[in-house]
């Protein structure tokens, strides 16, 4: 069987719908991973020992096992404890938590890198510890980690393909569905790859813009 790319336009609507889902899932998981990353970082650094240590263990497990395995755990695990979420929600939670752990690592380093005097000055000015963290330290730390977090978000886009395995109709599964009808895997997986590549390029472009803006205003 040779190649025939002329078949693509006929199924373009299904693929484009998949692109929409991929973008949506990536954005939602990215937001979750960003907020989660900040919360995780604060827990890892400032929570009492009894909370901090088990939490570190969980972080370690998340970093030491494959995302695909974690997705299976979250998807089937939630069902088992009676929470029957749609696959795409489980996918967003899985992707979001996985990358929250990686973001947390970056944010922790950045929080520790913020000058101690900032916290001291804030406390002297009468802010509480939590307030000083929230209003003075964390905003500075987050600024510093935006470029490396951008790299994580690009990795997230690519890893969003994995949620196809738990049945989320994003780009990869849409391609699979079309292939099920047409028996043309090469053409449609190449098409899917091209869409991922374009989204990836867009994200890199945005990342460069943001980096430039940050470096100017510093």
């Amino acid at each position: 069987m040779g190649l025939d790319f002329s078949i693509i336009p006929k199924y373009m609507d299904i693929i484009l719908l998949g692109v929409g889902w991929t973008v949506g899932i990536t954005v939602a998981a990215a937001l979750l991973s960003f907020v989660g990353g900040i919360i995780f970082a604060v827990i890892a650094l400032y929570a009492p020992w009894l909370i901090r240590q088990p939490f570190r263990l969980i972080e370690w497990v998340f970093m030491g096992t494959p995302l695909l395995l974690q997705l299976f755990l979250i998807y089937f695990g939630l069902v088992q404890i009676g929470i029957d979420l749609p696959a795409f929600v489980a996918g967003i939670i899985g992707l979001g938590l996985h990358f929250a752990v990686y973001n947390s690592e970056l944010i922790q380093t950045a929080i520790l890198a913020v000058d101690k005097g900032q916290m001291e000055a804030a406390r002297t000015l009468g802010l509480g510890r939590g307030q000083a963290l929230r209003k003075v330290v964390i905003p500075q730390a987050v600024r510093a980690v935006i470029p490396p977090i951008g790299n994580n978000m690009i990795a997230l886009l690519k890893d969003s393909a994995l949620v196809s395995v738990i049945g989320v109709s994003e780009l990869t599964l849409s391609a699979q569905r079309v292939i099920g009808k047409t028996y043309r895997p090469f053409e449609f997986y190449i098409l899917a790859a091209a869409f991922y590549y374009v989204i990836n390029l867009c994200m890199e472009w945005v990342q460069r813009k943001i980096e430039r803006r940050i470096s100017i205003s510093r």
Partner: protein
Amino acid sequence: MDIDLMLKVYPFFLEAAWVTIVLSVLTAILGLICGTLGAAARLSRFALLRFLGAAYVSVFRGTPALIQLFILYFGGPQIGIQLDAFEAGVIGLGINAGAYMTETIRGAIIAIDKGQREAARTLGLSSWQATYKVILPQSARLMVRPLGVNLNMLIKATALVAAIAVVELTYTAQRYIGSTYKPFEMFLLAGILYMIIIYVTGRGVAWLDRKVQIN
């Protein structure tokens, strides 16, 4: 937690862990070969090779590894490439890992001071000799740790071949989750084995890194 069940199925997980290890080793070897060739291309004096190297890195790092695997395994037969799932897994993941390693190796090479090459050339070494005897031994030291990070990612990426039904750790976990409805227990079994593999590899890399450093 169902300990009895875990004790009953763990031999299958051990077998699967062995497949994951073999897969990781073969993928790492192929990745290193591709990474070395990629870095050589990216640093070549020929513009065409530089372009090909850059395109390789950009395309393979810019698209999901899962899709690359599917193109090779499912799409391959259409262009005359017939591979079984394991072969497709090693080749697909190896080429993908090679793109990441290209950047690691290239980074370690360009981090070496330019003066080293100039000095070597001044002393009468040929360009190839300067690279081989002066630059590479120094950059090899810088490479160990970042290549260790690549290796860590690669081991976790081997889980992707579960999607083309290679019976490794993740596939085994998935199958037993399906048949026992005990996701947590199966995750624990597979997770512990992954973490052992990754921990041991990490220690190995740290040992090698200490070995190659000059005190």
